[in-house]
């Protein structure tokens, strides 16, 4: 029985072991890695990818994929940025309306992604690839390729706020993880998302509307992009139409390193959190370790693969 529970812990830990190994390695090999300052740096750096990856988890769980999150981030940001710089509002009004604008834009794009792929039965890969281009083009068009800047100082201050050395934006992301975990594991809605990822036909024949759940998953991903856009703006105080290029790959990587199956139906948002941490720790640690840019890129590739190998190895051991 103790062996049994040990196994269960190992199974849950999963990719956590790889993360732990990385942390131990960097703590021993670099001077500054485990300083409070650096930890809060890492947490800040993880935040945006983590928020995007939470939404991506919903989409991947139903067997879809969303390539458009990077472009949508830019689109949400420039729309919200435009609202935020309207001079007549008070800070409070401006930030409120900008948040609504970011969420609304994200929700609208996500809804379109979901609706088009569900209604026409198209692979979401292609639909969101289309949206990748559409949202980027739209972001460039509405701003005429210009960066929007000079947001209210208090908004910017919020972006670098700390609570006990933990960035507030990271706490927001963590809260979103908790909500997503709850929704996915405790609610009917979440149960059916898993079900669809596993066996769409069985769920349909049990009387559930696939359309609704598919559209919902993409819409949630869109809403999270909106939140990520606000965090981006608060942190960097700009909104540019060319931000977020390639962010989709990072978000997908976090989800998959975290153990969610790309074909859907299996995985947890806690895994996604760990996956995002691995990516963040790696990026930070390798710079502290002092590797050259090119070596760093190579090692990043190697470690990503090693992390999932460790996860697999753990699985083999616990299965035996």
């Amino acid at each position, binding site marked *: 029985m103790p062996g049994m529970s040990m196994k269960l812990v190992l199974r849950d830990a999963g990719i956590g072991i790889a993360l732990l190994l990385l942390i131990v390695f960097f703590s021993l090999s670099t001077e500054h890695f485990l300083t409070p300052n650096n930890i809060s740096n890492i947490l800040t750096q993880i935040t945006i990818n983590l928020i995007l990856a939470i939404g991506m988890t919903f989409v991947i769980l139903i067997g879809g994929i969303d390539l458009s999150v990077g472009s949508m981030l830019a689109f949400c940001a420039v729309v919200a940025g435009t609202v935020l710089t309207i001079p007549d509002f008070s800070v409070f009004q401006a930030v409120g309306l900008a948040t609504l604008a970011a969420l609304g834009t994200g929700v609208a794009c996500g809804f379109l992604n979901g609706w088009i792929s569900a209604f026409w039965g198209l692979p979401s890969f292609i639909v969101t690839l289309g949206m990748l281009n559409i949202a980027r083009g739209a972001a460039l068009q509405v701003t005429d390729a210009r960066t929007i800047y000079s947001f209210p100082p208090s908004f910017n201050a919020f972006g670098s706020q700390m609570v006990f050395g933990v960035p507030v934006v990271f706490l927001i992301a963590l809260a979103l993880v908790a909500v997503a975990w709850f929704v996915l594991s405790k609610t*009917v809605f979440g*149960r059916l998302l*898993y*079900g669809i990822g*596993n066996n769409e036909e069985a769920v349909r*024949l049990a*009387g*559930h509307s696939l359309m609704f759940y598919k559209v919902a998953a993409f819409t949630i991903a869109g809403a999270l992009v909106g939140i990520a856009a606000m965090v981006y703006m608060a942190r960097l105080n700009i909104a540019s139409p060319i931000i977020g290029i390639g962010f989709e790959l990072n978000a997908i990587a976090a989800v998959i390193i975290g153990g969610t199956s790309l074909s859907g*139906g299996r995985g947890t948002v806690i895994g996604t959190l760990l996956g995002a941490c691995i990516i963040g720790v790696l990026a930070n640690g390798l710079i502290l370790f002092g590797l050259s840019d090119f070596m760093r890129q190579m090692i990043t590739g190697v470690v990503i693969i090693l992390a999932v190998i460790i996860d697999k190895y753990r699985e083999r051991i616990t299965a035996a």
Partner: protein
Amino acid sequence: MTHPDSGALHQAAAAEATRVPILDLHDVRKRFGGTVALNGVTLSVAPGEVHGLIGENGAGKSTLIKILCGIVKPDSGAIRLSGEAYEPQAPRDAKARGLQVVHQEFNLLPFLSVAENIFIEHLPRNLFGVVKRKDMNVGARSALDAIGLKDIDVSWPVERLGIAHRQLVEVARALMTDSRVLILDEPTATLTSRETDRLFTIINDLRSRGVSVIFVSHHLDEIFRICDRVTVLRNGETVFSRPIGETSHDQLVRAMVGQQLQKEMASEAISSAGKETVLSLVNFRHAQSPHVDGISLDLHKGEILGIAGLVGSGRTELLRAIFAAEQPLSGTRLRNGKPAPFRSPREAIQAGIGFMTEDRKEEGLIMTMPIAANVTLASLSSVSRVGLIDSKLENAMTEQLGADLKLKYGGPSRHAATLSGGNQQKVVLAKWLARNPQVLLLDEPTRGVDVGAKAEIYALIRRLAEKGLALLVVSSELPELMTLCDRIMVMSQHRIVGELARADFSEEKILTYAYQGERRHAGH
């Protein structure tokens, strides 16, 4: 339809059995986590012997077979093949040593052609590795003809085939390569008697060529018809292994379930069918139907209406159309006398209809999710409050239905994939019972369910009918329909060709109707 007489062969087999057994298992054990699947199986198969392997659902038959073909490794025990130690590491090893298997769950390639599926092990090739398509198609054609599957084109993708046809394609594939031991895991579960007869002709032929066959079935009459010897597993143990001539039906049942079975099936059922029509179809034409006038029928409250027919006669299509899993072409569907133009299964379910599909793997179960999640899939609103799942309630419901259906399982949180085939089938049934429907459409409801559990399920269906549930039952097992139903309709070529009241039930009459449509069709 003469059953091949195997008396002479019995003697030959008996003579051979004294020689070295081709396959010899000694005290094989296997556990999956906490579940003991095999707890000491000992089995010996002689050359040219047809060896029946029977046992309740979850007794360990499929696990034993997986061990033999190298998918699962045993924890302990010795296996000898032709006297030599045999420890297959992969399916390839088993094939190399002359073992062929037809698995209980399908293993076909849906988008490849029937011919390619049949030849997948050894696609005929020339020197450059190019598939000899003509040879392959001709070979596949004759393989299908041999098992009597004449009406499908070998270039069709398998996804176009119904479940029975798929089963036959699997059998045809296993027969492609010469083997020393052929293992068939419930091949007849989806077949009607016509196909089963053909399969038995083939098995007899193999036996006469010295091939050993391990045959798994829940139909004891089949065991008596075809086997030379029978082995009974109970809870993963061999409890009984005897030449077929030295045992009896009752003895086998006793050995399987460990007690005398009540004669539930034979008991004369009293119809509880009322006058009220709960579901009726008027000129209802399902998607594949070639007939403009479609199908018309009435289903009454508390009635059990059976639909018989040959494989491919359109029974599954009809049920799917009623349930709006596929949109019908034309015609009217009435629920309690009112038009019910469902657009999706969702609406059908809301109107109190349930539908248990024939293909549990593809349409019924979510294999990698817990049993409880599968049981409550269609009734999530009754185990949840404001969208939150009450897992206590969910587990209670699962345990309740599990007990009703005599489900053998590790626990409600185990994955459906860990269940034996028959127990998976029970989970699908439980999913619909959990909803308390007023009309239940059942497509091959006891596919792969053992005799004991079958009796339980029959009793349960009867009880439900007494409470007013109306059932439309499609089954390829005529005895099942005849035990269960108040009325049987016979389908052929997508139309209803005959109807029998309970008093007129007989296999002969049903088959006459079923073949009649076929002949008429051929005459065109």
